[in-house]
C-alpha cells in the first residue's frame, strides 16, 4: 500500500512553494511548530491546519503523495482520538464504553477501570490538529525541496558542517542500503522467515539476522569511503562552497519575517496568559492581551 520511494523522494515542480528558499521553509516549519504548541482554541488550531493544507494544495503535490499525506493525517488523527478517548481526564466526561471495569480483578485495580469517553474523542480530534498541521508542513517541506538544498540551508543556519556531511552521506546511501535490506529480507524469506509472524523472539531473531549483514556491509563500505574522502583532502572545518548556492529573495524575507514575528508574538502572549491564569504574574496594562489569548488564541 505504501511506496517507500514515494514517501522519501521529493517531487520538484515550479510552484511558489517549491521556489521558497529552504532556510525560509525550515524557519517557517519551526515557527509553525511553535504555533502548534502555543495555540489552544479549536478555531485557531483549525486555521493553522487549513494553512498547512492550502500550502499542500498550492504545491500541486502528485496524487500518490496526496494519498500518503491523507493517510498519515487521518490515521494520526484517529490514533490521538483513540488514546484520548481512553485517558481523557477533563470534566465533564461521558462513558460510552467500558473496556475494563474497575471491579475486574487485577487489571481493574491497576487501571481503576478503562473506559471510552465521548469527550475524549473530541479533545483528541482538536489536539490532533497540532500533529496534523506539523505532518502536513513537514512533509510538504521535504517533498518540495531537494534534500541537498535542505542540508545546505541547515548549514547556512549554522548547524555544524560535520552533521550535514554525515547526513548527506547517510542520505546518499539510502537507496543502496534499502536495496541491500530488500535482498537480505528476500534471503531470510527463502530461509523460512515469515514477516507476518509477530512475536518478540521471532522478531528479534529476524532483526539480528537482517541487521548483521547490513551493518557488516556498512562497516566495510565505511573503510573504503573514508579512505576515498581523506585521499581528497577532506577537512570538515574548512570554508565550504556549494554546487547550487542559496539566495534569499524578497518573498523569502517576507515569509521568514512574518513567521518569526507572528509565532514569537503568539508565544509571548500565551506565556503572559499562562503566567496570568496560574496567578504568577499580572499586569493590568496587559488586560487586552489576556483577553485576546483567552478568547482567540
Amino acid at each position, binding site marked *: 500500500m505504501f511506496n517507500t520511494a514515494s514517501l522519501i523522494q521529493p517531487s520538484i515542480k515550479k510552484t511558489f512553494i517549491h521556489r521558497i528558499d529552504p532556510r525560509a521553509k525550515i524557519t517557517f516549519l519551526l515557527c509553525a511548530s511553535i504555533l502548534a504548541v502555543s495555540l489552544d482554541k479549536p478555531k485557531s488550531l483549525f486555521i493553522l491546519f487549513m494553512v498547512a493544507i492550502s500550502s499542500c494544495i498550492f504545491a500541486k503535490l502528485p496524487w500518490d503523495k496526496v494519498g500518503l499525506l491523507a493517510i498519515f493525517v487521518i490515521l494520526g488523527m484517529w490514533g490521538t482520538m483513540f488514546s484520548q478517548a481512553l485517558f481523557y481526564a477533563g470534566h465533564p466526561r461521558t462513558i460510552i464504553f467500558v473496556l475494563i471495569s474497575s471491579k475486574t480483578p487485577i487489571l481493574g485495580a491497576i487501571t481503576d477501570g478503562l473506559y471510552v469517553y465521548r469527550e475524549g474523542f473530541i479533545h483528541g480530534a482538536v489536539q490532533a490538529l497540532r500533529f496534523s498541521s506539523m505532518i502536513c508542513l513537514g512533509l510538504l517541506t521535504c517533498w518540495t525541496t531537494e534534500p541537498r538544498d535542505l542540508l545546505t540551508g541547515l548549514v547556512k543556519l549554522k548547524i555544524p558542517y560535520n552533521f550535514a556531511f554525515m547526513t548527506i552521506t547517510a542520505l546518499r546511501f539510502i537507496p543502496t542500503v534499502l536495496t541491500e535490506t530488500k535482498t537480505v529480507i528476500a534471503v531470510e524469506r527463502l530461509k523460512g522467515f515469515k514477516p507476518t509472524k509477530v512475536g518478540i523472539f521471532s522478531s528479534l531473531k529476524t532483526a539480528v539476522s537482517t541487521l548483521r549483514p547490513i551493518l557488516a556491509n556498512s562497516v566495510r563500505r565505511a573503510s573504503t569511503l573514508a579512505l576515498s574522502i581523506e585521499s581528497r583532502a577532506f577537512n570538515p572545518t574548512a570554508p565550504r562552497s556549494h554546487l547550487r548556492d542559496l539566495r534569499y529573495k524578497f518573498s523569502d524575507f517576507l515569509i521568514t519575517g512574518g513567521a518569526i514575528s507572528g509565532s514569537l508574538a503568539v508565544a509571548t502572549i500565551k506565556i503572559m496568559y499562562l503566567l496570568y491564569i*496560574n496567578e504568577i504574574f499580572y499586569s493590568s496594562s496587559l488586560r487586552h492581551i489576556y483577553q485576546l489569548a483567552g478568547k482567540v488564541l
Partner: protein
Amino acid sequence: MRKLKIILILVLVVFLFSGCQGKGEKDLKIKTVEFGHHRAVIELSRETPISSVSVFDQDGSLITTVTIGSEVSKQAILFFDWEEARPYLFQINLKNGNMIEKEVKSPAKPTSVAKFCIQAPYGMRESDERSLVAKGSKVTATVFLESYSGNPLQASVKLTLPKEFKLVRTPSIFKAKETREGHILTAECKLVTEFDNFNELLEFEVLSTLAEDIYKIEGEATVEEIINGERKVTQFQKEKELRVISLKEAKNLAHIAGIKVPTNDEGDFDSRKKENTLALSVDGNNFLKRILGTGNKEIDYLEHPLAFATTTVRNENQDNVVFLVTSKVLDPKTKKIAQAFRVPPNKSGGTGVSYAVVSVPGKSEAKATLPIYVNEAEVLGGKYILESEIKIFGTDKAISKKQKEIDVITRNPVPGLITLAAFLITVIGLGYLAICQKAFFKGFKTKWLVIIALFGTATFITVNVPGTLLWDFLHVILGPFSFLITGIFYEIILYALIMSLVVLIPRPGVVTLALGVSFLLGGVVLGNFSPVTLMWKASLIFLLETTLYLFGVTRKNGILTDIGAEKRWRVLATAGIACALADTLSVYINFGTTIFLYRLYYATWYIHTYAVIDGFLYTLVGALVGTRLGFSLRKIIE
C-alpha cells in the same frame, strides 16, 4: 561536608516556606463586634481555627480571655461587664500562631428587662416591619424572648396569625386555638437566669389560593419579675406584616443581578485572577509540602475554601427583604452537585451546598459571598456550572436562579518542569555543539564519522521508515497500546544499532552523532522537525551519554577496552542497564513534554507501564542484542 551543606540548605528552604503565611490568612479579619447584655459577640470574615479570644480596655489592661482550643469557628463570645462609649481592643489568637485584632467603641447599654422579637419569615431584621412572601410558600417563623434580668422571670407569649395561613408545624409548648381573628398560639415559660431564652420555630403555609394582600402577625409577651417582693409586669408587643404576592411578582421584585467568581471573602473580584476560572492551588508552599509529604489535601479541603463566589441580589421591592442565597457547583451533564465540589460535611449543616442569609434593603442590592470548597484529590479539570439561587428567607420557593459556566484549571507543575528541563538540556546541548564543535569533533576520525553516518542510514531504513508506517496503522487497531509492537522497532532495533555502534567506537559523542544524524534524516526526509522531537532527542542523547559514561561503557579504558570472553557478560549487563535506565527516564520526559505542549491526557498507570515495557525491557533486550552484534562487527574492523 557537601551533604551537610545540602541538608542545611534544605532545612533553610523548608523553614522559609513553613513560615509563609497562607494565601487566605491575609484576608482574615474581625468583621463585626456586637455588644449585648454583659457580652460581646465577635464575628470573623470567615471560619478559622481559633485558639483564644481576649479583650483589653483602653489602657491595654486585659479584661478577660477565653481559651477555645482549636475549634474552627466564625464567631466567638466574650462575657464581660462593658461600659458605655468606651474603646475596647478585641484580640483573636489563631491556632497557627497568628493574631488578629480590632478596636471597637461600645454602644449605649440596653435598659429593658427582656428582649422580645418575632421573625416572620425567620431571618428578617428586628427593625423590619414588613416582608414579602410568595404564594404557595412554606414559611418558617421564630418567636424569641430573652431575659436580661438576674431575677427569674415568668413569661407568657401570645401569637396571632391570620386565619388564611395554614399551620404546618407548631412546637408542643404552644397551645393553638382557631378563632375569627385567626390562629391564636399561646405559651407559658419561665426564664430562670439572665440570657435564658424562649426560642421557638413554627412553620405555616401561605396557600397558593390566597389573595394578594398584606397580612399581619401579632405577638405579645408578658413578663413578670419579683423585685424585693414586689411584682413588676412588663409587656412587649410586636407586629409584623407579610405582603403576600404571586411567585411571578416575587420573581420581578427580586433577582440575582450577577455572579462573580472568583472573589475574596468580602466579595471583591481580584482582577489578577481570570474571571469564571478556578485555578487549583498548587502554590510553592503547597508544592513543597507535597514533595515533603507533609501536605494533606483532605485537611485543606475541610478547612480552606478554594475560592469564593459572590452573588449580587437586587431587591426591586420598597421594603427590606431577607434572602437565603445558596451556591453550588454542578456537573453540566447530570445537573447534580459535582461530587468534588460538595461542601464538606462539617460545614453548612451537611447540606453539601454553601448558603448565606442576606438582608437587602428596598430598591437596592446586596452581596452574598459564599465559599467554594474543592476536594482536590477528586476534582477533574474542565467545565462546571456554578448555580446561585435565592429564596425569601424562611420560605421554600426559589424566586431567582442564575447559572454561570466556570473553568477549573488543574495545575500540575510536573509536566511543565519536565518540559523546562528538556528545553534547557536542548538549548545547552545545541549551544555547546555550536560553540565547541571543533573540540567535540577533534577526536573523531573520518572513518568513524562515515560509519556513524552509514549506521544512520541503517537506522533510518530499519527503524524510522517501518516505525512511521507501522505506528499509524497499529494506532488505529491497538490505540495507545501499539507501543507493544512498534517498540520492537523504536526500542529493540534502535538500541541494537546504537549499542553495536558504541561497541565499535566506544567513546563519548558517538550516541550524540548517531541520534543527531537520525534526527536530521527524519527532518530532511520525513519532515520531523518539531521542537518536541528535538527536545526529546536532546534529552535522550544527554541521558544516554551520561549513563554510558558513568557505567564505564564509553569511558577511556572503560569496560569495552580489552574484552575477554569472561568479561562479555559483565559488558552486556552493564550496557543493557545503562541504556534501559536512560530510556526509561526519557519516556517520562517524552510524556511530560507531550502532556504539557500537546495538552494530552495519559493515565499514570499507562505511563509507568510504557516506561517499564518500552523504556526498560525493550531497551534492555535491544542493548543486549546490539552489544553482541557489536562484538561480531568488531572482527570485521580488526
